[in-house]
């Protein structure tokens, strides 16, 4: 029982991290109808920049701030230099561009930092708890608090502010939104900045959680988050978050705890196939 609960807590934490990466993808798909595969590269950059700043300053706050700034910049650059010029072509063209970006950025990280696995020996400034014999480490507490905070902030921005209304309007009909006085270019850039900054946080959390940062750390998230936005419902942010958390819990419980002999990363795709067969609009998607 205790092991089950511990696994459950780990699963939710992993799911929360997935959610923070998948969010950016869901936001971008919602607004541009592009599969932003390169988002995983932004996440990798976040981990590396976070590690670099941390090594130089030993401050995890500066590290997070720096990584968020750099990633927001990288996200906007990808949007401006790659997606924007390719928007007029069929959707597979920006997708190919996106894959190219992913590979190029991964290789840049490899060139800059070497092909090794670097450790990220940060202590996150969060307390650890022991509840009924179950230890909740400070890293776990940090993942819970930070992801809950980030998700709440994003929820607030998208549903309760004028900026969020402008984002929803732009994602539903860009031409009309412009006619209503919304500078849709700016809204798109802001969306990329927000998604990318959140990916930076996810990169640092993963780096610290597993104590590993390496050039291809974005490879598995790149396709797993694609499966997740399909499972959640393309473009649905709440759906993406729900699917991410379910997957995190599912991976830990089914494969880690119950010991089903499947590769852990297969679960996302089994879920995707099941969703495509029985509920093609996704868990929380609106139309089929």
């Amino acid at each position: 029982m205790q092991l089950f609960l511990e696994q459950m807590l780990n699963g939710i934490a992993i799911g929360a991290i997935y959610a923070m990466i998948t969010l950016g993808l869901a936001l971008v798909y919602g607004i541009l109808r592009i599969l932003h595969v390169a988002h995983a590269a932004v996440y990798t950059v976040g981990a590396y920049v976070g590690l670099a700043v941390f090594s130089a300053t030993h401050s995890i706050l500066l590290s997070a701030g720096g990584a968020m700034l750099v990633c927001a910049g990288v996200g906007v650059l990808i949007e401006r230099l790659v997606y924007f010029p390719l928007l007029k072509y069929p959707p597979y063209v920006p997708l190919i561009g996106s894959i190219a970006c992913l590979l190029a950025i991964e290789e840049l990280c490899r060139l800059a930092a070497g092909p090794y696995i670097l450790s990220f020996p940060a202590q996150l400034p969060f307390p650890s708890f022991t509840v009924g014999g179950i230890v909740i480490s400070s890293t776990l507490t940090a993942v819970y608090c930070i992801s809950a905070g980030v998700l709440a902030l994003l929820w607030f921005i998208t549903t309760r502010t004028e900026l969020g209304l402008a984002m929803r309007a732009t994602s539903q009909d860009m031409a009309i939104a412009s006619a209503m006085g919304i500078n849709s270019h700016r809204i798109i850039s802001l969306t990329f900045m927000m998604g990318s900054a959140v990916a930076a946080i996810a990169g640092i959390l993963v780096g610290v959680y597993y104590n590993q940062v390496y050039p291809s750390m974005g490879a598995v998230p790149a396709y797993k988050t694609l499966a997740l936005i399909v499972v959640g419902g393309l473009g649905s942010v709440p759906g993406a978050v729900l699917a991410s958390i379910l997957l995190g819990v599912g991976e830990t419980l089914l494969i880690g705890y119950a010991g089903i002999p499947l590769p852990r990363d297969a679960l996302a795709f089994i879920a995707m196939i099941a969703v495509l067969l029985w509920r093609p609009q996704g868990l929380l998607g609106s139309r089929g």
Partner: protein
Amino acid sequence: MDEPLLSLREISMHFGGLKALDRVSFDLHEGEILGLIGPNGAGKTTCFNTVSGVYRPTSGEIRFRGKRTDGLPPHRMAALGIGRTFQIVRPFPNLTVLENVIVASGLSCYGRLIPSCRSWKGRKTREEALEILARVGLEIQAGQKAGLLPLGNLRRLELARALALKPHLLLLDESFSGLRHEEIAQQEELVRKTRESGISILLIEHNMRVAMGLCDRLVVLDHGRKLAEGKPEAIRNNPEVIRAYLGKGGSANAS
């Protein structure tokens, strides 16, 4: 004569070899309802799109309130005071009717990041939006998802959305098409009231009875060229217009 509110000078819009607009000029004066008519494919909607900033004209000059505006993007035109509706109604289907209107009234905030983070459920924005909905008779539907409204209500929602920009000029692209008789009468009343409130109107209309009854002046386009311009009676009797446009089975409509 004072300076016109909107003036088009020698506007051409070419798409490849197609001359959708060919050196079209006309003026719209403060307080006027000007109708843009012509057969299908005459260039009416293209003309709207150049005025509202969707297209940058190939050549020519557009002035709005004395300022050169051709080539400015749509959101800048909206900010300068041009509101528009669309031929095919396009509400934001997943937003409520009220939110649809608030989107347009948030204008002053979208330019900057900080004020746009204020809650848009602020009382003032909300009250203004509700007041506009009351003006077009949609206050009861305020909380509904816009995608669920019938066409007549959608046409009025489009008008409400354009009004929320507090425009000087309203562009109405076939705001009457697909409406029933009594809805047309309501919509005409609404357009007249809008003009009385000080907003000038440029409209595209296929229904000749509506266009003749509502507009102070008409501009007739045909194959991208301006064919005629004048008061409704003069247009009705213009032989060239009859030949190009009303002659093709349209004369019954015109009388």
